[in-house]
């Protein structure tokens, strides 16, 4: 197995139980929440989309922050180059982002199925379909990648350049998240809408900014000194 795939599989192995706990928590919270809401009123929104749709990208943002401080030295200490570590992070990050983006429309479909089993669907509930599922996936994926790249780049800035250097890079590092939140936002029903720009342009802008920030992350880390302890 190539070193970068080795890094990717080991990162996925490390985060597999954490992700499992995350999704179990999501399912329990949404299940309890939707049950309570359904008993009180007819839900006009999808709690899954509201909670899981947002939490999925935030989770990836947190993982991005942890990657450098927690895992870089761990892998380098076992003979992995920074280059292979970064490539492995990119592979694992893409895999997780795709899986998380898939989980959002799948969860929405499951939520709708459970609601329909309990009775007729509320009139204003945002029903899902292959088209809306694709739209949800198309919104969550670029946003999840943006959060991951943003988190990793922010922590890399502080790791490499210290407090002041990290702060100076902060405005650049958050650009993909700003774009994702502004252009690919969530409406009050938990549905995904587009603002200011058509979807394709919004996704393109978000992905382009994510690529730029990912490049900055690579520049920060490609020859960084390995610090002692978690930074």
């Amino acid at each position, binding site marked *: 197995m190539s*070193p970068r795939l*080795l890094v990717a599989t*080991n990162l996925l192995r490390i985060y597999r139980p954490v992700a499992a706990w995350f999704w179990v928590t999501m399912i329990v919270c949404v299940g309890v929440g939707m049950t309570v809401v359904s008993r009180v009123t007819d839900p006009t929104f999808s709690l899954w989309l509201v909670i899981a749709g947002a939490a999925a990208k935030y989770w990836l943002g947190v993982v991005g922050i942890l990657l450098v401080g*927690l895992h870089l*030295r*761990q*892998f*380098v*200490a*076992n*003979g*992995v*180059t*920074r*280059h*292979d570590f970064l490539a492995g992070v990119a592979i694992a990050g893409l895999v997780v982002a795709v899986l998380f983006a898939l989980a959002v429309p799948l969860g929405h479909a499951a939520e709708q199925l459970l609601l329909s089993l309990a009775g007729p669907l509320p009139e204003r509930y945002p029903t899902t379909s292959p088209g809306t599922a694709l739209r949800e996936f198309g919104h969550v994926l670029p946003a999840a990648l943006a959060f991951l790249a943003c988190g990793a780049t922010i922590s890399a800035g502080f790791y490499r350049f210290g407090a002041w250097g990290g702060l100076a890079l902060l405005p650049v590092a958050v650009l993909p998240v700003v774009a994702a939140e502004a252009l690919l936002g969530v409406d009050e029903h938990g549905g995904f809408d587009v603002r200011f720009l058509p979807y394709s342009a919004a996704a393109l802008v978000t992905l382009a900014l994510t690529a730029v920030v990912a490049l900055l992350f690579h520049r920060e880390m*490609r*020859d960084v*000194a*390995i610090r*002692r*302890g*978690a930074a």
Partner: protein
Amino acid sequence: MISLRDLTVRYGDTVAVDGITLDLEPNKIYGLLGRNGSGKTSLLSVLASYRRPCAGTVTIDGVDPFENAALMRATAFVRDSLDVTDQDRIAKVLDFAGRLRPTWDAGYAEHLADVFELDRRRRVSALSRGQRSSLGVVLGLAARAPLTILDEVYLGMDAGARAAFYRELLADYLAHPRTIILSTHLIEEVAGLFEQVIVIDRGRLLLHEDTDTFRARGVAVTGPAAAVEAFAAGRTVLGEQSLGGVRQVTLYGALADHEAEAARTAGLTLAPVGVQDLFVHLTAVGDTARTEALR
């Protein structure tokens, strides 16, 4: 062959490693000695590709090891702080190393964990200082990396654990020869393991030679004060002590046979100096002129 040429590491205005030039032959055990802040860890960090030098070069068999996948894979660098996740259990740390290191010997790691009485279920954060050091030794030795660098890995170990470490290190080195660099302050304890000694002081290379040659460089001359002073005249004196009319000086530099004979004839007693004593004399604080003379 590991070659350092004019290697320099700076942190802002502080020069940690100052133009060190050094060649290390493969498959030997090196003792890297130096006082606190002398630049040992910075030097080792560059060797292990943990950081780039500010100036100068490092090559291993003619190739720059920095970001070289094959050479980094062939290097194990264990720092006193341990590069592991504190929340992980020992079993997970060993398993992780085994997955990433092609030369990892899982059976030997288990053996070492038994020797150091490490409970695989315990989290790293729950280990004592000495147990953390033991874990570092397990990671460093079981990696069986062609270049193994152990930076003060004995910290907090009790005498029994240290003895086990030295025993295992020597046995494994004899079974699997490789280049091992040991940085330590417990010089006298480990000196028997070193084939070569490297002494750095204030970031600069003070000396690099075979341990036997190094030992022979120091000689303690004891006798009547006047006779000792006469014998020491013109030689590099590393240290001196007086008690009544008896004087002892520690001289740097091997004595030729006729010089040793002359000393005995003059009623002087010659005795070898321990590696640690020699190191202490060579790196004594505030004696820059003496160390400069030795360079």
